[in-house]
């Protein structure tokens, strides 16, 4: 039983790491602020969630896993907020998604 839990937990953690690497390549390759922030958001929400839940499962259920889940709850509250604030400031400073820019200025 413990082995199964450990396998599932580490599997989830590795999946989270893979998701984070994909998101990091997205941050480097995507064209503008907003799409790059979208990629960064994947690390914060899915990547961190997979890693933390995986570790919580692999470590067995106890105070440590409760703490990991609390960290996850904290991340899920703070990082979308930070993302939102960043996007809003970028918008206020006059940045726009490229397609929107084309639509508004016309072809």
């Amino acid at each position, binding site marked *: 039983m413990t082995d199964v839990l450990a396998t599932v937990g580490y599997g989830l953690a590795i999946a989270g790491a893979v998701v984070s690497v994909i998101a990091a390549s997205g941050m480097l390759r995507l064209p503008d602020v907003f799409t790059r922030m979208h990629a960064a958001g994947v690390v914060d929400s899915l990547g961190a969630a997979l890693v933390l839940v995986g570790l919580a499962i692999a470590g067995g259920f106890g105070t440590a896993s409760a703490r990991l889940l609390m960290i996850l709850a904290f991340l899920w*509250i*703070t990082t979308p*907020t930070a993302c*939102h*604030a960043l996007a*809003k*400031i970028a918008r*206020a*400073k006059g940045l726009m998604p490229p397609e929107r820019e084309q639509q508004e200025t016309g072809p």
Partner: protein
Amino acid sequence: MTLFADIALLAFLIAAAIAILRKRDLFTIAMLSGVYGLLSAAVFVALDAPDVAMTEAAVGAGTSTVLMLATLHFVGREAMPPRKRPLLALIVTVAVGSALVYGVSDLPLFGDPKAPAHGDVARHYLERTGEEIGIPNVVTAVLASYRGFDTLGETAVILTAGIGVLALLGMLPRRQRREVGAEPAPHRDHTILRVVAKMLLPLLLMFACYVQAHGELSPGGGFQAGVVFATAFLLYALVFGTRRARAIVPEAWLERGMAGGLLVYGSVGVVTLLRGGAFLDYDVLAADPTVGQHVGIIAIELGVGATVASVLIAVFFAFADVDPA
């Protein structure tokens, strides 16, 4: 596995340091130094020093980044172009660097059992803390009790640094001051930011109290609690503006907190003297020496926490108040 994590963290640290050196945009540099602080905190965790890691995460990644951003308000975003031939700077750097490298050769090797740090004193701390002080966190025992006099000095240094910053920045007449966030700012209508900040603040403040009160049992203590409290307060000031923040903690209270914390610390020492012990020898504070140690440590940790939190908040206000013109 641990070795791999250590190497990865140190590589990240070096990369962050090189990136800081190569950038000219000061905003990026401020952000990168926050990243550097967070990475150092992770290194401290890897080294099994959570007490230090907590301080580094709150100060290195939190407070000092905010202070640097506040400084950018009045120095502008761009670094000055480097001078053409910084020969003198090169000579000074090489000289200081070689002196430091020469000094390193005298240090004991990492993990050397003969090093002074691993001598009798450390063994005494590790073996006798439970019996003499009666608390599980040896770091707090060394910091607050065995080396209580050093920590008194450190607290005095923090107070002196705070007074220095206030003397340099805080002497401006009141009309030259600028209230950050008081005028319509781009983040004025950040409802989500405000709601989340209000949601997190009680938790952060409760965590600060926990770190303060639980420092004998788990990582933490006055320094950590002070910086966590100050960071929570800085968050409030950043989201809601310094005018509202000032309404909560008036300047007079900050000044009292800065000096009062050190006063509490020193008074504990005077009380131990009056009760017939040595300066900061908490054994005499109660009938049972272990209880006396507990009372003394809790009292001085409160003093340290008050001084650290007040100095950090006062320094932030001093920076936020300076008119960039």
